[in-house]
């Protein structure tokens, strides 16, 4: 069992900078992969974890090259092999499961062909045997109707199905080592939990070693025997999964674990200051020095080596790790939010809102109406109070972003009204809204890379709303911009920077500042933290909360991440297929009784704790369209009681905690069965 199958020795990988200097993005990495073991490699973006994983297959991305060290697979150095030799190993001995299977499957080739290709290259089976094997593999990864699946093109499958095909393809060559590069990132929570479950099963079933690369400690915790934590191209902590997650003795890992929002905890996670250093910027000392609260002068001058701690069977790269051994009991802390003293004034009301993406028929276009019996979003009734944070939660296709766009006026509603301040109806057409209403509702987008104009400096970006809404100019404009930057904790010198010169977190801060520049009453946040690293996410969440407490802004917060929603929101609305399932104060929505869909979602959340396993209660089928009648969740509901679910829209029931659930099952019965 303890045979080492791949061994990385002092590996450094780097690139030549424009000045001709060698800059390493992977520094002196050494680790061993044993047979049958699953190793999790965790780190934030830029930590070098993907580079390391690809090097384990002897693949170095274009522009990079190995500086020193070796990747020994069964005592042969992959980095010295010819491409002919590598072709014999890749797919046969070491196989890869890519991050985004949707993009990693060749679009013009059928699923069956792509699996067959791997079989032809790596096995001696003949045509009929291969066909049988393809069905077998598709069956093994639990894809429905494997016989017809082989004749489909990649784009005809859902994200979860594509990921399963990638797994099947990797298994085709019966590899000894499986490399998984963020295999569940980008999938819905329930799908993610199912794919992870499948991977765990395969590891056990085939005895394959796995290397699981991810930024998500929750996913890593579920599959790994051993965890390697990377920071700025170095291994900073390495040891058994349980020890790393429960007793992290490196300050970075410690901070990372604290910055993850958890389902069991209300309140905001603690954030880590600063961001990861750029490759090449560290000349001496510990790479974590700038962000470390244990750092001493010694750390500034000397870089620590990996030190083996016998009691914990752990390697750690820190001079002061002993100080953390006793601190660990307060790993479960969080910053409590100031409860919002909302004066219960309703600032925004959605009344019977329906939205349809159906194409208008010719006559409807003339009459300017939409006739669609089964709109994407239907019957949304939400009253939003001043100063509260209301979250819309659901998987992709739940209509949460659609509702947000309608509030912003970017998407016309089919039916219903959006009322703003004292029951004034807001037109669903952006052009018909008056400038003050436009100012009052601002939007922050998911990806700051796309929402900030790359050709504008931060000053130009922030001056636009100020000029547009308040006609500011000259000194006053500049003063306001500096104030805004101060609010989002960025210094004055950021004014002349371009978005590309900022880190992900800084960019999102600028986007937040731009929204606040309009002095809005309501800010619509569309997955604002999902493109950010965990430690940065915590900082942005804290910033949003601080700004809200200071300025009394109302947030409508859209997210697929239940833990993040738990951390920031006062009230939660759960959506499935564009219909409301449950709505209530957040501490109650996360308690039972819950709508069966909320139950499924909560069960699938991955916590960074090897002792909390996800509960998989519903199938992860993807529904293309909401059902025409009855309950929206009828297709997947594990608690479906019968025909009534298919024919009648369930009634609203109010629980004793004040959360409203839309289900045919009596709320008390629901409470009993969910205990």
């Amino acid at each position: 069992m303890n045979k080492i199958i791949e061994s990385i020795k002092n590996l450094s990988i780097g690139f030549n900078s424009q000045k001709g200097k060698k800059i390493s993005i992977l520094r002196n990495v050494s680790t061993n992969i044993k047979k049958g073991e699953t190793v999790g490699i965790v780190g934030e973006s830029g930590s070098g974890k993907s580079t390391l994983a690809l090097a384990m297959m002897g693949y170095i991305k274009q522009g990079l090259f190995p500086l020193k060290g070796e990747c020994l697979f069964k005592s042969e150095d992959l980095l010295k092999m010819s491409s002919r030799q590598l072709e014999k190993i890749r797919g046969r001995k070491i196989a890869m499961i890519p991050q985004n299977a949707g993009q990693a499957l060749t679009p013009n080739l059928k699923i069956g062909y792509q699996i067959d290709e791997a079989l032809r290259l790596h096995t001696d089976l003949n045509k009929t045997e291969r066909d049988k094997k393809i069905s077998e593999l598709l069956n093994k990864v639990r894809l429905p109707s494997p016989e017809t699946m082989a004749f489909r093109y990649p784009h005809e499958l859902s994200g979860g199905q594509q990921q399963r095909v990638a797994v099947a393809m990797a298994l085709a060559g019966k590899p000894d080592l499986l490399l998984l590069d963020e295999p569940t990132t980008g999938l819905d929570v329930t799908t993610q939990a199912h794919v992870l479950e499948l991977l765990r099963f395969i590891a056990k079933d085939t005895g394959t070693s796995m290397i699981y690369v991810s930024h998500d400690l929750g996913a890593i915790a579920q599959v790994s025997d051993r965890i390697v934590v990377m920071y700025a191209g170095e291994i900073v902590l390495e040891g058994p999964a349980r020890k790393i997650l429960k007793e992290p003795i490196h300050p970075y890992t410690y901070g990372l674990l604290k910055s993850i929002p958890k389902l069991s905890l209300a309140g905001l996670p603690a954030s880590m200051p600063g961001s990861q250093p750029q490759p090449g910027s560290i000349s001496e000392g510990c790479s974590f020095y700038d962000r470390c609260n244990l750092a001493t002068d010694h750390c500034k001058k000397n870089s620590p080596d990996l030190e083996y701690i016998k009691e914990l069977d752990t390697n750690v790269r820190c001079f002061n790790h002993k100080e953390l051994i006793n601190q660990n009991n307060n790993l479960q802390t969080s910053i409590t939010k100031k409860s919002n003293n909302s004066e219960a004034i309703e600032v925004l009301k959605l009344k019977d809102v329906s939205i349809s993406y159906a194409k208008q028929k010719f006559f409807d276009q003339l009459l300017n109406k939409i006739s669609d019996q089964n709109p994407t979003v239907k019957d949304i009734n939400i009253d939003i109070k001043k100063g509260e944070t209301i979250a819309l939660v659901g998987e992709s296709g739940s209509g949460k972003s659609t509702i947000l766009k309608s509030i912003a006026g970017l998407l016309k509603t089919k039916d219903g009204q959006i009322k703003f301040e004292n029951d004034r109806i807001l037109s669903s057409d952006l052009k018909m809204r008056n400038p003050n209403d436009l100012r009052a509702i601002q939007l922050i987008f998911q990806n700051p890379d796309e929402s900030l104009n790359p050709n504008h400096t931060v000053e130009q970006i922030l001056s636009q709303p100020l000029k547009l809404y308040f006609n500011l100019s000259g000194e006053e404009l500049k003063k306001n911009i500096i104030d805004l930057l101060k609010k989002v904790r960025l210094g004055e010198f950021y004014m002349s920077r371009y978005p590309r010169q900022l880190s992900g977190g800084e960019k999102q801060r600028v986007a937040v500042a731009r929204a606040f520049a309009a002095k809005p009453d309501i800010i619509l946040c569309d997955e604002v933290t999902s493109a950010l690293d965990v430690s940065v996410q915590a900082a942005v969440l804290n910033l949003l909360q601080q700004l809200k407490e200071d300025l009394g802004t109302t947030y409508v917060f859209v997210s697929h991440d239940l833990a993040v929603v738990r951390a920031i929101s006062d009230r939660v609305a759960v959506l499935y297929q564009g219909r409301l399932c449950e709505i209530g104060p957040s501490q109650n929505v996360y308690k039972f009784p819950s709508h069966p869909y909320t139950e499924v979602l909560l069960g699938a959340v991955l916590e960074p704790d090897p002792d909390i396993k996800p509960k998989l209660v519903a199938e992860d089928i993807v529904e293309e369209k909401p059902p025409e009648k009855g309950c929206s969740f009828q297709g997947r509901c594990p608690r479906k009681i019968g025909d009534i679910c298919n024919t009648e829209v369930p009634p609203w029931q109010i629980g004793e905690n004040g959360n409203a659930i839309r289900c045919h099952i009596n709320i008390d019965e629901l409470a009993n069965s969910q205990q």
Partner: protein
Amino acid sequence: MLLLILKRIGLGLITLFIVSLITFVGVEVLPGDACTTYLEREAYGAALDACIKRLGLDVPAYERYLDWASNVARGDFGYSLSGEMPINEVLGPRVKNSLVLASVSILIGIPLAIVLGIITALWRDKLPDIMISTITIFSMTIPEFISATLLILIVAIWLGWLPGIVIIPSDATFYELLSNIILPVVAISMIMTAHMARMVRSSVIQVMASDYVQMAILKGVPYWKMVFRHVLPNALLPAINVVALTIAWLLGGVVVTEVVFNYPGLGRLVIESISNRDLPVVQALAIILASIYVGINLIADLMTLMLNPRLKSLQIRK
């Protein structure tokens, strides 16, 4: 799918109708008419009246348009003024000549462009790419009247290998044409190939950087197999539309090249009939060129639909 084809054909016909209207109106609003240009200084009195009557210019414009349009629909473009012969007879040999020139250029140019594009992409920033790219950019930037003139100077005058201009009647046979068209073909191919090779190059480079190519490498697919199965089908799809536009451009008459080489194709006919004020021929040419563009683009779109599984099933799903 069938519905889509019919829809596109319908749209194409509407485009042609609009083109015919515009050319007709354009000709109408020009000062003077066919008779004044034809008769020139004698355009007065009885001669003018007779001419107007003979050409039927005394009936209202819309009637003449309907009359002309219905004839065109039946394939009859009427009579040319300068030669007083049926336009179909004027056009016939010209269309054939342009077709010959275009198809030879296409047969040589397009495969060459694709091969060069692939080579430059696969050996990106290496010697073959640097050499080929320099040449293609060079031949792209030189205007065709200069490159054509230089070709004549070097090959025809200094070396004396080939005739400098095409001195054959417009109804010459295919074989007579062939020896004469080498220089025009080279001149055309230089620009056309350069443009398309650049296009193919960037398209292949883009696909080579995609996740699915990296995946294919990590799956252990041998290099050339990967290039042919995973890269080229995806990289050449967007090239189809560019190829179509190039073909349409070639068939529509490469005016400058034809004039420089004195080649009797459609392009030169355009120039000739415009300078002769031969308005019926101009009208006929406008319609023909427009239908070539519409037709070829239609074929290209359908091919893209057919070859791209993504678009195909999108159509089926609707």
